[in-house]
């Protein structure tokens, strides 16, 4: 049973059809994202040829550089050239530094992925229990306390929280490093040690959102006719909550989590700058400011792929939890 983890509902022809459809939908999404961003780079004022030509460059030299890098080609020709190579796995080289984009991505992606996955883990392990406790103690002091904290979590900007965390845990207490990242493959423990503070700053909003959404859904479920019937049948409150409750609110939970993951991708831009983490966020900002389009396109493609994959996983999970979703 190679697909033992998938329920029967996903293994039938209809399940595969839905999965296939989603994958086909991903292609125009990727094309649109890369084309749109390519257009945006062209709209940014400035000219990378001037940067490449260096100080004191004459207008003639700038024209020469533009021609050398194909920057004088029409917009569509440039995009087509990029796309043609990208589908063959060649993301090109940075115009500014000559480093192959795939190498930069391979180096930066693990750093970003580590803080995002750690943040997700923290958000889920703290947010889900808080939501459950809050819903099961509805109207009590504990519920009020958790929801107040959750409101704060939503309201507090992650960059501000990051500053506070650095100031207290890194500079005053010296428990965590204030900046930098370590590769997970070379030293996993040290890598997590470096990733914890940025992940915590990113997770705060997620904890708040997950716990609030979960509480609302659970409260709605707990006050439904179905629960009254289960009570009447003598099912224990704990079994109602775990066996029936979480299954019922699962779809909502997965939606919130998948939106949170996608949002984390953009939030890392600021967090990476504050913690000096050489990740995808810093890479795209630097490249966009200098109109280094092969790098921007490479990062956008990878980020779009991540978003598409996260959404696909969420779709699959919808089907697992509730076959009607297919």
């Amino acid at each position, binding site marked *: 049973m190679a697909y033992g983890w998938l329920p029967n509902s996903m293994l039938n022809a209809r399940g595969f059809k839905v999965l296939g459809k989603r994958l086909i939908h991903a292609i125009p999404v990727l094309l649109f994202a890369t084309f749109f961003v390519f257009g945006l780079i062209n709209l940014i*004022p400035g000219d990378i040829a001037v940067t490449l030509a260096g100080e004191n460059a*004459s207008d003639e030299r*700038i024209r020469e550089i533009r021609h050398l890098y194909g920057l004088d080609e029409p917009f569509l020709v440039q995009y087509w050239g990029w796309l043609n190579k990208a589908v063959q796995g060649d993301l090109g080289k940075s115009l500014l*530094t000559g480093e192959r984009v795939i190498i930069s991505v391979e180096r930066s992606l693990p750093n970003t992925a580590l803080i995002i996955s750690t943040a997700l883990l923290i958000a889920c392990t703290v947010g889900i229990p808080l939501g459950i406790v809050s819903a099961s103690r509805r109207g009590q002091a504990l519920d009020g306390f958790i929801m107040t904290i959750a409101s704060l979590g939503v309201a507090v900007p992650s960059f501000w929280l990051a500053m506070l965390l650095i100031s207290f845990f*890194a500079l005053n207490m010296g428990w965590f490093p204030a*900046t*930098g990242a370590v590769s997970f493959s070379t030293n996993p423990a040290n890598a997590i040690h470096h990733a914890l503070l940025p992940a915590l700053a990113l997770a705060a909003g997620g904890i708040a959102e997950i716990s609030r959404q979960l509480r609302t859904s659970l409260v709605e479920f707990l006050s439904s006719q179905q629960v009254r019937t289960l009570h009447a049948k003598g099912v224990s409150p704990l079994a109602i909550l775990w066996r029936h409750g979480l299954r019922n609110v699962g779809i909502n939970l997965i939606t919130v989590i998948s939106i949170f993951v996608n949002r984390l991708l953009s939030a890392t831009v600021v967090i990476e*700058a504050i*913690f*000096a983490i050489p990740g995808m966020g810093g890479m795209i900002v630097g490249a966009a400011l200098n109109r280094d389009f092969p790098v921007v396109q490479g990062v956008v493609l990878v980020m779009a792929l991540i978003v598409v994959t996260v959404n696909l996983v969420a779709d699959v999970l919808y089907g697992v939890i509730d076959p009607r979703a297919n």
Partner: protein
Amino acid sequence: MQIISEKQNALLQIALRRRDMLSLLGAGTLMAAGSDATAQRTPLKGGVLRVSSLANPSSLDPVTGGSGVDHIYLYAIFDTLTEFDFETLGAKPGMASWAFPNLNTMVLTLKTGIKFHDGTACDAQAVKFNLDRARTDVRSSVKSDVSNISAVEVTGPLEVKLTLSQPDAALPGIFADRAGMMMSPTAVQKLGNAHDRNPVGCGPWKFVSWADNQSVVVMRNEGYWKPGQPYLDGIEMSIIPELATGLRSVVANQNHLVYGLSPRMTPLLERAKNVTLVRGPSLFHHMIYLNYGRAPLNNVKVRQAMNYAIDRRAFVTATMGGIGEIATQNLPSTHWAYDKTLANMYPHDPARVKKLLAEAGFPDGLDITIACWNDQDSARRREVIEAQLAAVGIRCKFTAGTITEVSNQFFGTEKKFDAYLAAWSGRPDPSMTYSSLFGKTAYYNASRLEGSDELATLLQHSRLKEDQGFRTQVFAKIQRQVMELGLNVPIAFNPELVAVAKDVQGYRPNLLGKPKFNGVWLATK
């Protein structure tokens, strides 16, 4: 926190000179008493210096790169034909000494036994290869620096003769910069464009790795030609564009040194006990570039009015915590070519501004468009300048953007704004600065006009003779012309601020404001 100012630096040097002299005189008892101090100051070998660096290099090939932030990496890997004096920027021999047998000839004589990191000899052939490449390579960004060299001839194993199309006494200074950084011809020929990312020089450290936007790592060159140097086993430069983050990395003991700090960060440094602030003057100054090729700034009275409208002292107090030097010319007071007589040329004088504007035909003031940078410090500078100019009737419409973006719009073909509130980072030789700012074809001259015929003649004249006394006089005339014509509005020199961890020894700031780590060592490894 401990601040080493220029004055304290000088005092320290005087103290050292006195101690050296006493030891030479054989004052045995004094030597014994001072031995602890001497022992402490004897450089230790070893250790890796960790530096928080401002930006990703544009290239690690000195000739193909074009960014002012590259030098910190280049200085580590490449030695230059000549060097500059840290305090005054005067040129002095480096890998080579020089002579001008006549006005149109320069002879470079290399020191013996210098080798590139790949073992290739750094001889006359290598110098010819490098200079020809700088002059002719399609990707060279230093063509204009060496444009007066018409031929390079090898006249001995270690001797090169340069034939000049016109006299160029700026070349000794120019050879202390990119054009004088020697690369291994073997490596350049073998690697081609890939040399940008795999540089081979003959500097104190060899290139190890460069990960874009992450780090540049170098390690000791065991065959370095200067005896006993370098002290450090290596340097690891982490690229952290956010200055505050870079500073935090030093306060948290993750890095040893961060440079290019903003004066507004000094209060933060005062609270940090484990960090020393090294402060030095630098050529970097804030100024307003003017496009004097079109109305309304083609009127000299309007330009002069702008110079009188700026209260430079107030600017330094409001935006630089009071630690900048006010600028009424494009060179700071410690520079060898500084002209004292210009120090009070443009006092803050609102009445004079009104009078000049009325004479220029703007009795009710005027409107100008002006570009500026969009970072936090620039926003503060903009507010001060905007208020000062508005107070005398010069109404500014500001557009903020990234440095690349607004520079392109102002200096490039677009010519979008009347003025540009920005900065000039300086060059080793003043001729390079003035030619870059006021030369007819210079990129940084948005008007692409000569300020005056006399100025054009003086710019050429400044390269005529090497004699510093002669050149000082010419530069004084140039600077007076620039200021009388109001070709720009210099405002204030930014001090070079470097935060170093306590165990970093021997770091000295230089007037160019681009850190060199040649004399640096670590007290604990």
